[in-house]
């Protein structure tokens, strides 16, 4: 009985605590959400044109590796800055290349799209592990470091309310900051531009698009490759802007959480970004609780929850959200179905 009565008080404490740690929380939310958001944008662009891509995880991992490898190989000759910049370029190119493979499998070969994505995931794990063991581990040397984050003057970040929010979006490295512009830009393009209209038509009813002279296969190719470029950028973020190192399998399911964010966001850029922020916030909470636990009963309760539970929380929440939301989120009608041009009509 006593426990039940305590619940409202604990919830109130939790609210107060969240407000208190907000300045600490917000900047890491976007940092944690960045790879998810970029992966989700990849998913949106791909699925809107009718191609299911579960290989986002593998593309991120491969690009994370090639970006790191570029920095690792070149920072001594070129210096850290140019090496990092080149690393980002290489990551995007990697994303495009793997995207081309996915597009070829899904669009031209008409292989099963879920299997195509699985191939990419398994191959990414194998190839990066193989090269990591062959090239990086034996050298014993480090990478090119991380891209520095922008830092706002303290007078700005300490502003009430908007201070932390500004810090969230602008005390970031260039990749994290670019996410905001990419999300808004893609949202506008998808619903207002010629490319967006054609993409939506091709994902919903490719034959209708074909009959008005739209190159369905070409558009799918372009969208898959463009989307995968963003997944590549997400990989660069992981090794060059966030951690500064590469570990085997370091994406840790982010590519799949990104897919959940796509469904959560009803296949729109802004909605998926919201999903990514939500997952980022949940992960961030687990970190903040460890660093700066609240006082009182709430603190005792939150500290009594083992850290492994906080670590597992984003994954569990993904499942719950997926189960709750998926019925109301309608995917494009031709999602996952290869387009066969010449049929027996």
């Amino acid at each position, binding site marked *: 009985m006593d426990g039940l009565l305590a619940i409202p008080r604990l919830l109130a404490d939790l609210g107060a605590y969240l407000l208190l740690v907000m300045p600490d929380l917000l900047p890491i939310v976007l940092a944690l959400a960045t790879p998810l958001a970029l992966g989700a944008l990849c998913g949106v662009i791909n699925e809107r044109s009718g191609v*299911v891509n*579960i290989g986002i995880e593998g593309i991120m991992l491969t690009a994370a590796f090639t970006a790191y490898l570029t920095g690792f190989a070149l920072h001594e000759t070129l210096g850290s800055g140019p090496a990092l910049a080149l690393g980002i370029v290489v990551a995007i190119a990697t994303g495009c290349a793997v995207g081309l493979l996915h597009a070829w*499998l899904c669009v031209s*070969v008409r*292989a*099963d*799209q*879920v*299997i*195509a994505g*699985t*191939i990419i*995931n*398994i*191959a990414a*794990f*194998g*190839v990066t*592990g*193989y*090269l990591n*063991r*062959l*090239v990086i581990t*034996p050298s014993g040397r480090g990478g090119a470091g991380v891209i520095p984050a922008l830092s706002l003057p303290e007078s700005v970040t300490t502003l009430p309310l908007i201070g932390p929010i500004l810090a969230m979006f602008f005390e970031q490295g260039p990749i994290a900051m670019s996410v905001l512009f990419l999300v808004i830009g893609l949202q506008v393009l998808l619903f207002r531009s010629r490319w967006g209209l054609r993409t939506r038509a091709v994902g919903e009813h490719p034959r209708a698009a074909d009959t008005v002279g739209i190159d369905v296969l070409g558009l799918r190719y372009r969208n898959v490759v463009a989307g995968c470029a963003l997944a590549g950028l997400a990989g660069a973020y992981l090794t060059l802007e966030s951690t500064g190192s590469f570990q085997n399998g370091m994406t*840790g*399911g982010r590519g*799949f*959480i990104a*897919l*959940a964010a796509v*469904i959560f966001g009803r296949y729109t850029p802004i909605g998926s970004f919201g999903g990514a922020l939500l997952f980022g916030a949940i992960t961030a909470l687990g970190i903040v609780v460890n660093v700066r636990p609240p006082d009182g009963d709430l603190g005792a309760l939150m500290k009594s929850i*083992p850290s*492994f*539970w906080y*670590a*597992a929380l984003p*994954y*569990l929440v*993904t*499942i719950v959200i*997926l*189960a*709750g939301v*998926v*019925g109301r989120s309608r*995917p*494009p*009608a*031709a*999602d*996952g*179905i290869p387009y066969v041009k010449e049929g027996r009509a």
Partner: protein
Amino acid sequence: MRQRLAALRGAAWRASRLPLLSTALAMAVAAVIVVASTLFAGNGFQPLLPVFAYLNLFAGAFGSGTAIVNTLVVAAPLMLGGLAVGLGFKAGLFNIGVAGQFLCGAFAAAVVGAALADAPAFVAVTAALVAGALAGAALAFIPGILKARTGAHEVVTTIMLNNAAALLLAWAVGDLVRAPGFSFARTGEIGNAALPVLLGRNLHLGIPIAVAAIFLIRWLLERTTLGFEIRSVGANPHAARYAGMRPVYLVTLTMTLSGLLAGVAGAIQLLGVIGFYASGISASVGFDSIAVALLGRSDPIGILFSALLFGAFRAGAPLMQINTDVPIEVIDIIQALIILFLAADLIVKRVFRLRDRGHAIEGLDTVTRSWGDQVAR
């Protein structure tokens, strides 16, 4: 009689030639990658390295009685894992959660095995195996029921459960069932629950169990009405519902059965090979199982052979790495290439000038379509 044998041989060749040729092509391409990567590694250009590597791989897998037994030991969980994935495919489900279900099965078997370490061997082994099976089934039940009831796609939910299960089991083994007297968090000795060794150094009971499972699942799919229902739901869920079958029940049941097989895989690996559960035991069976099921075209007999092939790869790889410095990860590359060539069978057919169409895997269509479409309810 001779004619029937010849017809059977013809059918076997038709069913297996695409997988075999894909494997050959994958190994050839991997060889090129190995040669190419010698250009970047320290020891200079070595065009014959793949030959030595593959010779060592073969020796490691089949070079001696011990090696062969070792291959079988590695193949057994792959058979069960491959069956888990293949059974899912038959019902139009893609269980990528074999890794998590494998860990749950291993953990439950370890805990029950440790608790019954002093009980009679028959009781201890049986109880530990059943515990592993049920744990795997329980974990797979969650994505099964979610898919059936809400349409949440199992590709995402099972991956999420893989990650969550690894973390929560790490917590459980550290905080709940940690055995005293060890320098790291692990479960206690399993004593009498260890699977009896039937032959050689470690040909344990799990191997006949895995082979029996192959034939049991084959019987289930081919001969029973339940198997017919599972295959119908996989091939066309709308028609299955129209015909009075219950997709919600069948999807949940198949996913649970699939998890049960993965759980048994974890249990025999733990009780027959590892001996205790600790955070970080390898769950590579998870992804290998997908390759095994695809290479075996979801057919139980096909899975038997492809599990043996991948078992040989895994068992032989350490010798290859020791003797030739070619990293074990090359096996992952071969694996990915095999599936690539199977999925893009166009390439294989062109290289080898085959004309006929390979048999598609029943239910695979449904896996991808259910991404966009919900299961018929």
